[in-house]
């Protein structure tokens, strides 16, 4: 433990740095010659906010919204399911627990961790843009653009969970003659399974939101619907779409917390 004076000095300096960084960035961003709100911005703003009372709840539009919500859910599940399937073997290999040979193990683990970090860092929309340049417009692009970063996220969590399993049952399996790989199958995976499933359901909510913004490359979904209504300046429809999206996310979030609570009890 450092002595008390030293401790307090560090704390003050750190807080000072953080606060000044924040203040400076805010000034740089907001202190400009241009007026923040555009020419007829105020009237548009009020128009937009007031339109919440003119929600478009006509049956035709509600059906469109419902269809769009279903499409978003389907894209999210498609992308996540593929991500899970790919992330399982990658996660197992990159956890460093199933290969006996030390050198092979280390190379495999380092390369896979690097690959996972790369795919994880790039936002799904950027992946979508890159994939569109190669493949052209296709619904598969949306699914693949969801899959690639989620493989990175899920793979890393799988590896961590497999590593952080209680060690003693694994050692006993090994002492009973199981090879490392069999110890993974019979020991690590069953022991880590509740946590892994819990995390997958947690990511489901993120997946739905990511699927919603795939509208930018023209994929049908609730995001696309909101975008269309915005372009037409039909603010009532925009509000309906936003509320549909919120309800979808809230429902998925509630479902995921129920499942996670059931898993950890």
């Amino acid at each position: 433990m450092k002595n008390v004076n030293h401790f307090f000095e560090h704390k003050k300096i750190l807080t000072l740095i953080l606060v000044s960084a924040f203040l400076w960035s805010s000034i740089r961003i907001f202190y400009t010659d241009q007026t923040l709100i555009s020419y007829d911005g105020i009237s548009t703003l009020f128009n937009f906010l007031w339109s919440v009372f003119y929600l478009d709840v006509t049956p035709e539009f509600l059906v469109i919204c419902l269809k769009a919500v279903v499409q978003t859910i389907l894209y999210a599940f498609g992308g996540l399911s593929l991500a899970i399937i790919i992330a399982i073997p990658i996660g197992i290999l990159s956890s460093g627990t199933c290969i006996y040979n030390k050198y092979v193990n280390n190379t495999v683990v380092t390369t896979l961790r690097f690959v996972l970090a790369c795919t994880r860092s790039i936002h799904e929309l950027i992946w979508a843009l890159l994939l569109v340049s190669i493949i052209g417009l296709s619904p598969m692009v949306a699914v693949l653009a969801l899959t690639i970063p989620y493989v990175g996220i899920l793979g890393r969590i799988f590896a961590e969970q497999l590593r952080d399993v209680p060690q003693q049952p694994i050692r006993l399996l090994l002492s009973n003659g199981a090879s490392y790989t069999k110890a993974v199958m019979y020991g690590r995976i069953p022991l880590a399974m509740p946590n892994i499933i819990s995390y997958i359901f947690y990511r489901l909510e993120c997946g739905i939101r990511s699927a919603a913004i795939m509208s930018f490359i023209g994929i049908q979904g609730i995001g696309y619907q909101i975008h269309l209504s915005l372009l037409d300046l039909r603010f009532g429809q925009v509000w309906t779409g936003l509320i549909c999206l919120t309800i979808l996310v809230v429902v998925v979030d509630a479902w995921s917390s129920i499942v996670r609570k059931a898993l950890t009890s």
Partner: protein
Amino acid sequence: MTGNLIDINNVSKYYGTSAALKDVSFKVGQGEILAIAGPSGSGKTTLLNMISGLSKPTTGSISISSQDIGKLKPGKDLANLVGMIDQQYSIIPELNVINNVLAGNLGNWSLFKSLLSLIYPLERGKVFAILKDLGIEDKINNKAAHLSGGEQQRVSIARLLVQNPMVVLADEPVSSLDPARAEDIMQLIRSKLVNTNRSVIITLHNTRLIQEYCSRLIGIKEHSIVFDVSANEINESMLKELYK
């Protein structure tokens, strides 16, 4: 007793500069039931871990049936030689009883067979017979986490029976059980696991259980052996000295 199965030769284990075991040597023959006693932290678990091949000695060697355990990698050879059960971690709680028992085969089964058995357990009849012998055949499809402590130890004994190793190690198998269950488990160990071809090493604290069930006692205190006697030479004062 037909020849020595386990040969422990000047084995020491150091973690950095701190010693877990200092220069331990003894031999165990076939058919012997050896008890190891000693205060917590004296090195009993370290010794058992080294005999089972889980950790390697810093100096010295351990051989079972003339094979150097330190040189074997996890797999078939190790499975046939030695198997271990433990105080509480002998089973995987999330798996079914039948899969836990069949885990004894993992040394001998191929990867594909092991995977298949997880989905559709093979050798059901054999497992059922073993479990019936142990009195828990009705739990065969239950999740192992739902069994009581005594039942779980029976599952781990069943696993050892399936694995059929030459040496059985038991690290404090009854320490967390009440006296009646502990007696049951020791009975089972004696009747099912002990035979003339096998050696059994058990870590125990209870004098009466040692005298009743074991043929030899080694006392370990402060990382070295303090005595090595046969069962009829045991008396209370030796053990009192040991745990002082």
